[in-house]
């Protein structure tokens, strides 16, 4: 299924003062989320983080129609941090160039937030050859892919990572 961005939840989180992934990580809800992840089963969950509306929707539809994965989307760093806790993805497809916090920073913070959890992070960016590859791996990404990439190819990488 495609989960629409829960803007109400984001607003609610903002009103509660949860203004960054770090602050959320320190909250009691985040601890409950970490505990719950250990016992959760079911279909793998994929979170797509991209500021480009067309790419985000397209990938979400393609992945949810071609796989049995549950797919959710986020358009910026804050929403990604919130969805990381709410949706509890097994794999994150992350864009690099986003307004506000960049994808590589989000990646590093997600990795810190996930701790020892087996969260897979795939960087999917339109930029190539400017050191992003190395920097993404340093910031904790499992894989660096460049756009445009065929959806089947993305799926192959996603499956490898989820099964590996």
């Amino acid at each position, binding site marked *: *299924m*495609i989960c629409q961005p829960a803007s109400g939840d984001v607003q609610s989180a903002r009103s509660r003062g949860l203004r960054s992934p770090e602050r959320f990580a320190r909250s009691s809800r985040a601890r409950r989320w970490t505990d719950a992840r250990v016992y959760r089963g079911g279909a793998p969950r994929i979170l797509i983080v991209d500021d*480009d509306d*067309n*790419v985000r*929707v*397209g*990938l979400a*539809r*393609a992945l*949810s*129609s*071609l796989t049995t994965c549950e797919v959710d989307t986020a358009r910026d760093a804050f929403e990604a941090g919130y969805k990381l806790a709410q949706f509890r993805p097994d794999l994150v497809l992350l864009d690099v*160039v986003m*307004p*506000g916090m960049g994808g590589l920073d989000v990646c590093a913070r997600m990795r810190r937030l996930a701790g020892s959890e087996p969260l897979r992070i795939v960087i*999917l*960016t*339109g*930029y*190539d050859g*400017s050191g992003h590859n190395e920097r993404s791996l340093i910031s904790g990404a499992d894989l660096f892919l*460049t*756009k*445009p*990439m*065929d*959806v*089947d190819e993305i799926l192959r990488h996603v499956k490898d990572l989820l099964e590996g």
Partner: protein
Amino acid sequence: MRRHDGGGIDAGAGRSPGVVLPQACGAIAGTLDARGRFLSIDGPVEAALGRLREELIGVCAVRIVAPSLRRRVMSFWEALRSLGTIDGARIHLVRPDGGSASLDLTLTLLPARRTRDAAVRFVGRPSTVEAELDFWRVEAARRRLAARLAADAAHEINNPLQAVLAHAAVLRGGSDPRGEMARTDSAKRLREAAHRVRETACLVQHLRRRFEGAAGPMLLDHLVTDGLALFAVAARRRGVRFETHLAAAGAAVTGSPSTLVDLVLGLLDMAIRLARRASVIDVATTTCGAVGRQRLEVSCTHGALDEALDLAVTLRSEGGRLPASGFAREALVVALRLSRRCRGTLEITSRAGRGTRIILELPAAATATADGPRLAPGAA
């Protein structure tokens, strides 16, 4: 006769297939015919050339640069035909020992008369080390800017291409959980993405033409609107918004087109990169009719540029802190150099907390060319 500042046009390194310039290649002057062949060679180099002088007469001047760069040298001729004079064009020659020599060329078109065909008078002076370093410093900044724009353009193409692939997979898959409505929407989004690719490809095409060296006066308004179109991605990413007030409609400015483009783009790039998130940058063009100059004003009163540009304050001896970013320093130096090449002036006023105003004044062209070379098809 209008003058064309050829500064920055790099003819590149090369060696003639049959002609090797002597080790001590000093100042050189002479005449070329309309087809670029040496008619005469004089100046201090005449003695150094010896027998080679005779060999060079009748040889096409384009042959003394690398074949891959001959097309760019031909842009000199295009500029000469439209502007009459090229001043400060730089040509790099490889010596037999592997070292390089740089000559700053001044080319003047001698129009055809009843008794004589059109010809070109050239004077080449060897560059000093300081001039060479300065030249390459500015060149490096110009190329970095071009590379950034190219990367932005690639990003703008890759993103919609990814959208096209994703939506095509949805349509091909045929089992979308949201049914027909989602498929219709995907088809619509696919068309939108394809249109975006096409628009960006047009921009890239115009950018490519720019590097091939356009000739002729350029309209200041076109430069600004096309520049803003090129920087749309960077501005969106930084959350910066531009307010434009273009009042210099149809006003053309003189100078080397590539230098003018780099100057205006450099200023816009600096404004975007040094702006704070969600700030507004005002860009205005005006005509100073009495003085015969065109004015471009880039200002931000939201405290976005002032801190980073405090170096500008020291330029005007008004005190202030040094900028944290080396980029601001370099960008200012490059903008200043390029404005001088175009015989323009650059004035920067900046005070911490009170915003920054950059005023570029350029000499107006004698005649405004409505169809002057443009960077991009659409406005920002």
